[in-house]
C-alpha cells in the first residue's frame, strides 16, 4: 500500500480487514486529483475520485464581465482545453449578443479547433496512454526503443500547437480569437505551412492508429453506458453543434441541457457531477465516434469501420483508439479547410447586434462535451454556467473504477497492480481535473 | 558632385538594378503606418515621398532589436561568425540620413562598436526626397537637407528625379543602371530652376511650429524645474519614445545558455532610459528612481548633451516621438515647457 503523503479522508485504519487503495495523485492527467477505493474484506465499500484541486469559482467571478473579457478568462479554466473553452465562450457570447459569424471566421475557428484536438489527442494517446500500455513510466523513457514513434508523436503535438499559435496568437491562452472574429487572420504563407505539415504527418497518423488499434484491450470492466455529444448538422463530422445527442437516440436543444443533465455536489470533490436520466454517462471521443462516427469519410471513416466493434459501447479503454481515429480525421480535414481559407479576403470584426440575452455555446473539447451558458444584460454577464467534459465523465469514471476494482480484486490481483490498472482507466478518460473543478452553477436571485 | 536624371517609369528596372547589389529594404505598409521591410517583389517597390516616417527608424537595420553579440562556451568567448548580408536602404529621407550620420559619429568615436560597424559597412543608403507632414520639423533641426551620408539620393523635381551620387559604391550602382538605360547623364537645361523650386517646395512644406531656439541653455536652466515632476507623473514608462527615436542608442545585454549544452550567447537588445532599472546598481541603489529623473535624462540627451559633445542636437526632427507617445510627452511639448519657464 502506498502511504498517503498527507492524510486526507482521515479514517480508522485499526481494522486490518479494511484494505484501501489510494492513488494519491493521478499522475499524467492535468490538474490535481486522486482515487480512493476501499474494500471491507472482499467487499467493495467505497469508490471516490477526490479532487484536491481547490475551487476557483470562475463562474462567480464572471459576473459583471464583458464578452471579450470572458473570452480571455474562461480559457484559463484549463490549459489543454484552452481553444475549446475559447470557442465555447465565443459561441455563447455570439448567440447571446447576436453576433454574426462570417464564413472566414467560421473556417478559421474550425481549423483552430482541429489544432487543439490534434495537440491534445497526440499528447494523450502517445505521451500518456501509450506508455501505460507498453509498460513505460513516461514517454521519454520510450525513446530508447520507440524513438521514431516518440519523435513523430511530438511532431504531431507540435503541429497542433503551431496551428493554435497561428490562429490564437499563443500556444496556450492566446487572445487573437474573440467574439466577433479574429484580431488578425493568418497569412497565406502560414496557411500553406499548415497544409504542408498536415500532408507530411498523414502517413504517421495512420500508422500510429494501427499501433493503438493493435493493443490488447482488457475486458475486466466492461459494461454498457450512455454516450452524449454534440449533434452535428447534415453529414458533417464537426466539433460543435446546437443540440446534444445521446446514444439512446434522445436529442435535446442546447438551451435545455440543464433540465436534462442534473447537477449535484459530492463532499469528496470540488467538481460537481451530472447525471443523465439519473444515470452516469460518458462524453469522450469514444462518445462522438459511437454517436456520430458514421459521418466520418475518407481514411478516418475507413479506420472507424475497420476497428469499430461491439465492445466500444462498454469499454472506456477504446477512447484511446477513438482519439487516434479523430486525429486522422483532423489531419485529413486541414488541407481542405486551408484551401477554403486561401481564397478568402480578410474581414472586419463583427459587432454585437444587441446588449442582452442568453446564449449557450456547445463544443466538443478533446475529452468531450463542453457547455458555456451565459446571460448578458447591458453587455455584462449576469449569469454564467460552465460544465466541462471531465465533470460529466466523473460519475461514469467512478462507476467503471468500481467495477474494475471489484473484478480485479476477485481475480486476486495485487494491490499495486490494481492501483496501476485503476490509474490507467482514469487516464483513458483523458480527464482534465483542473477543468473539472469549475463546474459551478451561479444562480441569480 | 556627379548627378544624373531618372524617370519614374523606370522604377521597376531600378529595383532590378538595386537587388543585384543586395537585399532591398524599403517602407511598406503596416496597419496605418509604415515599416522598413525586405522587398521581395518589384510590385511592392515604390517611391514613397508621402511616407514620412516608419514606426521603427533605420537603426533597426544596423543594430537589430535583439541579436546575439557574443557566443560562448565555458572556455571561450567569440563573435558569432554569421554572414551579414548587404542591405540597400531605399526610401530613407533626409532626417533618417542625418540620424545615421549621428549614429556613425556616436558609434565610432572613442571606440568602434563592432556590431554596428560590421552592419554599417554592408549598408547602402538610397535616399528619396519627401514632403513634410504636420509633425515633421527637420527644418528646425537643420536636417532637412543632407550633404553627406547617402550613396545615392533621389530628389523629385516633378517631371523627373535628379539623382545625386554620394559615394563610389553609389556610382557603381548608377553605372550599372546607365548600362540598362535607366539613368541619363544629360541633365535638362531647366534643372537649376527646377531644383530651386524643389528647395522652395521643401521649405514651405513644414508647418510644425516647434521652437527649439536656445534649448540647450534652457535645459541647463530648467534642471530643477517643476514641470519635470508633472511629466514624470503622467509618463507611462513604456519606453516607446526611445524605441522609435532614430538617435537613441542605449542597449542592454543578457546571457542565455543552451539547455543541456555547454554553449550560450550574449543577447544584445534595445534598452530604454525610461525603464526603472536603467540606472539601478547593486544593493538596490537607483541613481534615477524617479520617472521625472529619467525623462530629464532623455531630453538632456536630445537637446543638450549631444550638442556639447558633437556640436549638433541629436534630434533630427522626424516627429516619431510626437506621433508615438500615448501621453504626449515629446520634443514639442517639452520645448514648450522650457519656453514657458523662460516667460516666467
Amino acid at each position, binding site marked *: 500500500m502506498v502511504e498517503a503523503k498527507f492524510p486526507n479522508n482521515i479514517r480508522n485504519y485499526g481494522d486490518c480487514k479494511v484494505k484501501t487503495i489510494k492513488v494519491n495523485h493521478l499522475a499524467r*492527467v492535468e490538474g490535481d486529483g486522486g482515487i480512493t477505493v476501499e474494500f471491507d474484506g472482499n467487499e467493495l465499500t467505497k469508490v471516490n475520485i477526490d*479532487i484536491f484541486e481547490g475551487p476557483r469559482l470562475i463562474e462567480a467571478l464572471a459576473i459583471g464581465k464583458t464578452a471579450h473579457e470572458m473570452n480571455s*478568462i474562461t480559457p484559463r479554466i484549463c490549459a489543454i482545453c484552452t481553444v475549446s473553452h475559447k470557442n465555447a465562450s465565443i459561441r455563447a457570447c455570439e448567440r447571446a449578443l447576436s453576433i454574426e459569424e462570417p464564413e472566414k471566421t467560421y473556417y478559421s475557428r474550425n481549423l483552430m479547433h482541429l489544432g487543439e484536438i490534434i495537440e491534445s489527442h497526440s499528447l494523450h494517446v502517445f505521451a500518456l496512454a501509450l506508455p501505460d500500455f507498453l509498460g513505460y513510466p513516461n514517454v521519454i523513457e520510450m525513446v530508447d526503443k520507440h524513438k521514431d514513434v516518440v519523435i513523430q508523436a511530438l511532431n504531431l503535438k507540435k503541429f497542433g500547437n503551431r496551428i493554435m499559435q497561428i490562429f490564437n496568437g499563443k500556444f496556450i491562452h492566446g487572445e487573437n480569437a474573440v467574439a466577433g472574429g479574429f484580431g488578425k487572420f493568418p497569412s497565406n504563407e502560414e496557411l500553406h505551412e499548415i497544409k504542408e505539415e498536415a500532408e507530411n504527418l498523414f502517413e504517421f497518423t495512420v500508422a500510429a492508429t494501427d499501433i493503438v488499434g493493435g493493443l490488447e484491450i482488457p475486458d475486466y470492466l466492461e459494461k454498457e453506458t450512455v454516450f452524449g455529444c454534440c449533434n452535428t448538422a447534415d453529414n458533417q463530422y464537426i466539433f460543435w453543434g446546437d443540440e446534444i445527442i445521446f446514444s439512446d437516440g434522445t436529442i435535446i436543444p442546447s438551451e435545455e441541457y440543464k433540465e436534462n443533465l442534473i447537477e449535484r455536489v459530492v463532499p469528496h470533490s470540488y467538481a460537481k457531477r451530472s447525471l443523465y436520466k439519473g444515470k452516469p454517462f460518458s462524453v469522450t471521443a469514444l462518445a462522438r465516434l459511437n454517436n456520430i462516427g458514421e459521418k466520418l469519410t475518407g481514411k478516418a471513416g475507413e479506420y472507424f469501420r475497420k476497428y469499430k466493434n461491439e465492445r466500444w459501447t462498454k469499454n472506456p479503454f477504446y477512447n484511446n483508439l477513438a482519439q487516434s481515429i479523430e486525429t486522422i480525421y483532423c489531419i485529413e480535414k486541414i488541407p481542405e479547410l486551408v484551401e477554403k481559407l486561401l481564397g478568402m479576403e480578410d474581414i472586419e470584426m463583427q459587432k454585437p447586434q444587441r446588449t442582452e440575452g442568453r446564449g449557450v455555446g456547445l463544443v466538443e473539447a478533446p475529452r468531450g462535451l463542453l457547455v458555456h451558458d451565459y446571460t448578458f444584460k447591458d453587455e455584462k454577464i449576469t449569469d454564467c454556467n460552465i460544465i466541462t467534459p471531465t465533470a460529466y465523465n466523473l460519475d461514469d469514471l467512478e462507476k467503471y473504477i468500481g467495477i474494475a476494482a471489484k473484478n480485479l480484486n476477485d481475480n486476486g490481483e495485487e494491490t499495486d497492480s490494481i492501483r496501476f490498472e485503476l490509474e490507467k482507466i482514469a487516464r483513458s478518460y483523458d480527464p482534465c481535473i483542473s477543468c473539472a473543478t469549475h463546474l459551478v452553477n451561479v444562480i441569480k436571485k | 558632385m556627379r548627378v544624373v536624371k531618372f524617370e519614374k517609369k523606370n522604377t521597376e528596372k531600378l529595383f532590378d538594378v538595386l537587388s543585384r547589389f543586395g537585399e532591398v529594404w524599403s517602407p511598406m505598409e503596416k496597419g496605418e503606418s509604415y515599416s522598413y521591410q525586405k522587398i521581395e517583389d518589384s510590385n511592392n517597390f515604390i517611391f514613397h515621398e508621402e511616407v514620412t516616417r516608419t514606426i521603427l527608424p533605420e537603426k533597426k537595420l544596423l543594430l537589430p532589436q535583439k541579436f546575439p553579440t557574443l557566443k560562448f562556451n565555458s572556455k571561450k568567448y567569440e563573435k558569432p561568425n554569421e554572414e551579414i548580408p548587404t542591405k540597400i536602404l531605399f526610401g530613407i529621407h533626409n532626417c533618417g540620413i542625418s540620424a545615421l550620420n549621428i549614429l556613425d559619429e556616436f558609434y565610432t568615436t572613442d571606440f568602434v562598436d563592432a556590431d554596428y560597424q560590421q552592419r554599417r559597412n554592408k549598408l547602402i543608403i538610397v535616399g528619396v526626397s519627401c514632403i513634410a507632414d504636420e509633425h515633421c520639423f527637420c527644418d528646425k533641426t537643420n536636417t532637412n537637407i543632407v550633404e553627406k551620408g547617402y550613396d545615392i539620393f533621389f530628389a523629385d523635381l516633378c517631371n523627373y528625379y535628379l539623382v545625386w551620387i554620394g559615394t563610389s559604391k553609389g556610382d557603381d550602382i548608377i553605372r550599372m543602371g546607365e548600362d540598362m538605360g535607366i539613368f541619363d547623364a544629360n541633365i535638362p537645361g531647366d534643372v537649376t530652376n527646377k531644383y530651386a523650386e524643389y528647395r522652395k517646395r521643401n521649405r514651405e512644406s513644414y508647418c510644425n511650429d516647434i521652437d527649439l531656439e536656445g534649448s540647450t541653455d534652457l535645459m541647463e536652466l530648467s534642471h530643477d524645474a517643476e514641470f519635470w515632476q508633472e511629466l514624470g507623473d503622467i509618463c507611462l514608462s513604456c519606453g516607446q519614445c526611445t524605441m522609435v527615436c532614430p538617435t537613441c542608442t542605449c542597449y542592454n545585454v543578457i546571457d542565455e545558455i543552451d539547455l543541456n549544452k555547454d554553449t550560450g550567447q550574449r543577447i544584445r537588445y534595445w534598452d530604454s532610459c525610461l525603464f526603472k532599472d536603467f540606472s539601478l546598481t547593486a544593493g538596490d541603489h537607483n541613481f534615477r528612481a524617479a520617472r521625472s529623473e529619467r525623462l530629464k535624462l532623455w531630453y538632456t540627451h536630445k537637446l543638450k548633451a549631444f550638442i556639447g559633445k558633437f556640436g549638433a542636437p541629436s534630434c533630427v526632427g522626424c516627429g516619431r516621438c510626437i506621433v508615438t507617445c500615448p501621453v504626449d510627452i515629446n520634443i514639442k511639448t517639452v520645448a514648450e515647457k522650457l519656453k514657458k519657464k523662460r516667460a516666467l
Partner: protein
Amino acid sequence: MSNKPTLGIFGFTGCAGCQLALLNCEDQLIDLFEAADIKVFYEAMSNNDDGAEVDIALVEGSINTDKQKEELFHIRKKAKTLVAFGSCASYGCVQAMAYGDGKWEERFRKVYGDVEFAVGKAFEAQPIHKFVKVDATIPGCSPATHQMLTAITKLLNGNLPVYTNAPVCLECKLHENECLLNKGILCLGPLTQGGCTAPCISHNTPCVGCWGIIEEANHSAEIELLIENGYKIEDIIRKFRIFGGSKISEQYTKLWRL
C-alpha cells in the same frame, strides 16, 4: 547516481498550463529530461518520487485549500530553490481577481451551497509567496517557451534567472506594432511585465495583462489617459484586476475604492 541537478514540478490550483507549456517544448523535451534528473512531474510521468529532495522545485498554481498549504510547506522543506512557476503561483492570476474584496465566502456558498467538503478546507486563492519563501519566479500565463526555457536552463546551471525588467511595450515596439493606446484601445501593455514577446498586440488585440503587473506601472496615468479616451473608470479597473491578482489589490487598494 548521476550528478545532474534534480528537478520537481508541482501543481496546485490553476489551469495546469505552465506544466503544459513545458510539455509543449517538443523540441527540447528530450534535452530537458537529459539535463535534469526529474523527480516529480505529474503531468508527464507516473514514476514520481514525492518524498525526494530536489535542487529546484517549480511550483505551479495558487494555494486555496488547507491540504495544498501543507503540501507546499513540505515542498519548501525539500527544495533548495523554490520557483513560482507562472502567474497563478506568482500572484494568483484569474482566480485571485477579486482578491481581498471580502466576498469570497459569499461566492463559495452561491456555488456549492452548504456542502461540507472532505478534501481540505478551501479559501480564497493566494500566490505561493504568501506562505513560503520564493527564490525566483517564471512569469506568464502561461509562460513563454523561450523565456521559460532560458530561466530553467539558468536554474539548472546554478544561476537565478534574469529578465529584461521592462513592460510589454518594449517587445511590442521591438515587433514594430502601432500603439493601440494611440488608437483609443485599452491596452495594458505599459502596466504589464514584459517577456511574453507581445503576441497579442502583434495580432491586433490589446494586452490583457496576463504576465502580471510590473513594478513601475503607472496606473493613475493610464487611467487618466483612458478616461480621456472615453472609458469608464469601473471598466478600466475591472480590466486591471482580471490578471492583477493579489498584487493589484494590495498595492492599489485606494485606487479601487473609487
